[in-house]
C-alpha cells in the first residue's frame, strides 16, 4: 500500500517554509526520547495498540507511541472530559489494562502485546465497536474511550512528514502560498501527481491490497 507518491518528500519544500513551522515539523523527525508518561509495564501494549490502529508492522515506524506519551506527559489535553469518563490520562491507562485483560480472557495471551496480529486486530475491532466489557472496561464508556485514544493516535500519525508523503499532502505553505487552485489536478512545482488512482473503497471491498 506504500508507493502512491513514490518520488514525493514534503520536506524537500521545507526551505520555503517559515522558521517556526519548519522547527515544529522537523522536530518530529528527531531521535526519540524514552517514554515519560507510560510505565515500562504499559509500554508493550501501548506500542501494540498504536501499531494495530495505524497498520504499522515494520521499521521505520511513525513514532505514534512516543507522540501520544509526550502529549499526555506534558498535559496537552483536548479541553473536555465526558461526564461519565475519567480524565484522558486515566482513560489511557485503563484502556491498556483492559486490552491486556481481554487478551488473557479471549486469547489466553499474557498481554495484548503478546497476541499475534490476528488476535490483536480482533480485540481492536471489538474495541472500536464498543463491544468490550468486564474489568477495566467497566470503568469506561468503551466507545468514548475508543474516540479518546484514536483522537490522539490519528493526530500523532497524520502530523508526521512520512504520513504527509504517503498521502501526497502539499504541506505547509507560508510564506510561499498555493497559487494553483484548480480547476482540476493543477500542481504546484513541489507537488507530485499520484502514481495510481485506485479507489480505496473498491480496494477495501474487494480485499485487494
Amino acid at each position: 500500500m506504500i508507493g502512491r507518491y513514490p518520488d514525493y518528500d514534503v520536506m524537500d519544500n521545507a526551505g520555503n517554509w517559515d522558521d517556526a513551522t519548519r522547527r515544529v515539523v522537523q522536530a518530529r523527525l528527531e531521535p526519540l526520547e524514552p517514554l515519560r508518561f507510560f510505565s515500562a509495564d504499559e509500554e508493550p501494549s501501548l506500542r501494540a495498540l498504536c501499531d494495530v490502529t495505524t497498520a504499522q508492522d515494520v521499521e521505520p515506524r511513525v513514532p505514534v507511541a512516543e507522540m501520544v506519551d509526550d502529549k499526555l506527559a506534558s498535559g496537552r489535553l483536548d479541553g473536555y472530559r465526558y461526564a461519565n469518563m475519567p480524565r484522558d490520562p486515566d482513560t489511557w491507562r485503563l484502556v491498556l489494562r483492559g486490552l491486556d485483560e481481554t487478551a488473557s480472557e479471549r486469547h489466553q495471551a499474557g498481554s495484548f502485546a503478546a497476541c499475534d496480529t490476528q488476535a490483536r486486530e480482533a480485540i481492536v475491532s471489538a474495541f472500536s465497536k464498543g463491544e468490550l466489557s468486564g474489568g477495566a472496561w467497566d470503568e469506561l464508556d468503551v466507545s468514548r474511550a475508543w474516540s479518546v485514544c484514536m483522537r490522539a493516535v490519528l493526530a500523532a500519525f497524520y502530523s508526521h512528514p512520512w504520513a504527509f508523503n504517503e498521502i501526497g499532502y502539499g504541506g505547509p505553505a507560508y510564506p510561499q502560498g498555493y497559487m494553483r487552485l484548480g480547476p482540476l489536478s493543477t500542481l504546484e512545482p513541489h507537488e507530485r501527481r499520484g502514481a495510481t488512482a485506485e479507489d480505496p473503497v473498491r480496494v477495501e471491498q474487494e480485499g485487494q491490497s
Partner: protein
Amino acid sequence: MIRGLLKGAIGPADNDSRFLLDVHRRDLPGQDTMARYRDSDEVDLCIVGAGAGGSVLAQRLARWGWRIVIIEAGPFWHPDEDWVSDEAGSHQLYWTQERVIGGEDPIEMGKNNSGRGVGGSMVHYAGYCPRFHPSDFETQTRDGVGVDWPISYRDLKSHYELVERELPVAGQDWPWGDPHSYPFSPHPISGPAQTLWKGAIELGIEMRVGPVGIVNGTFGNRPHCIYRGFCLQGCKVNAKASPYVTHLPDAIAHGVEVRADSMAVRVEIDQSSGRASGVTYVRESDGVPRQQRARMVALAGYSIETPRLLLNSTSPRFPAGLGNGEDQVGRYVMVQGAAQTAGRYPDELRMYKGPPPEVSSEQFYETDESRGFARGFSIQTVSPQPIGWAEHVLADGHWGRALREYMRDYNHWATIGVLNELLPRAENRVTLADDTDPYGMPVARFDYTHGANDKANMEYSTKVITDILKASGAQDILTIHRYAHLVGGARMGASPENSVVDADHRVWEVPNLYISDGSVCPTQGSANPALTIMALASRLAQRLAAAGSNTPK
C-alpha cells in the same frame, strides 16, 4: 451601483487597524507602548475576554475616550513565532483547560469551538461571515419555536454593514435574508469547491462564493490571501479577519490595555449598592489574585466562560451568582449541527489548497413546512487538513489498514458541510462542576441534548448534501456527524424571568454589568456567529456611548 464600482476601495472610517499593522511583521502593534493601568485605578470599563465581542466594544469606546482594560486568560500572540502552518502544532490556540461535557448528546469542546488568547476564537475560525436573517429575530412569532429577540434585524443592520467593511468581507451579492452586497469581490475558488458547486447546480440549489472575512486585494497594510489553506490554524498572512488585526490595533492605539495571561475568576460587587466594582483575576505567572477596579464591567468570555464567571461570582447579595436570581444563567446554550459529507472523485482535487470556506448556500435557511420541521440549515464547502480528514475516515468506521488506504486517497476527496439551526432548550446548560481548575475555580460543565425538531433537521440536511455529492459525480461518500459554534447561555430578553440581560446587554440585576459576546443570542439561525457577535458589540458600544449619564469624566 457606485458601491459596486468602488468595490474594495472604500475602507471604514473610525478604525485605523489596517494601517497600524506592519507589512512585514505579524505582531499586534503597540504592545510595548500600550497604556498600563494600576489595579487600584478605577477604569471606565473592564472587559473580560479579548475576542470578537470584547475587542469591538473596546475599540469603539476607546475612541470615545473611555479608559479600558481587557482581561484575557490566554497569551498575547506573536504570530510570526507562535503560529505555524501545521494542525498538531496549533494546539495552544484552543481553550484546552478542563471542561466536563454531559447530556444525551455531549458536545466536544477544545479545537472544535473554543479559543483562548488575544483575538479569541476568531483567530482559528474558518472565516465564514454571514449575517443572521431578519427571521432569526422572531422565530417564535413566525414559526412557533425558539423565542423572539427584544431587538430586530433593523437594529443590527447598520452594524453588520460597518463590521463587513472593517473585516472586510468578500463575496458575491447575497440573495438570501436581507439581500445585500459585500465590500470586497468574491475570491477565486478551488477545484473541490467547483466540483461541489456543479452538483448543487444539477439539483437546482443556488450557491454563492463567500461570504468570508478574508482580504481579496489589499486592505491597508493587510496583504492579499495566499490561499495556503490554514485558516483554522491562525492566519500568518494577516489576510483573514480576527479582532487581532481588525479591532485591537486601533483599540490599543486609543489607550486600551490588553492584559493577557490573566484569568478572571470573579466579578466583585459592592454589597451596599449592588453595583459591580471590579474584576478579580489571577496572572498565570504568579497565581496571586488581584482586583482591577472599574466603573463598569463587560463580560465577553463566550457561552461557556461567561456563564461560569457569573455563576462563580457569588456573594451575600447574589448567593446564586450574578444575574441568576431567576435561574437563567447558563441556560439555552446552543450549538449548530455541522455534519460534513465527503465525496470521492476520479481526479486529484487536493482540498488542502485554498481557504476551507469557499462557497455556501442559505436556500434552506427558513422554515419550509413540507420538510416536516421548523427552521432550517445552511450549506458550506469545507476542506479538512489531514488530521481533520483522518477523523472523518475514523467516523466512517475505519482504522488500521483500511484507514491508511482511505487516507492515502486524500487528494481525491472534496467535502461539504451543513450548519443546522438547533433550537434553544432550557436544559442545555452550563453549570459549575465539582472539579476545580488550578486557581480553585470550579470548571464548567455543559450538558446538551437534542430535541425532535433538531434531529429531523439534521437528518434532512445530511440527505441534501449527500444528494449534492451524488449529482456532482462522487464515486463514494462518507459522512461525519459533528457540531460547531456556541451561542446563548446569558440570553437577552424582554423580562428578567426568561433572560439574563436586557435589550442593551445589561444584566437585569446589576446595573453596571454588561455582556458583550455570543452568549446573549436568544436564537442562532444557521449562520456562523462571528459577524453577529461583532455587530452586537458594535451596537452595544453605540448605546453606551450615546447614553449621556454614562459618558465618562
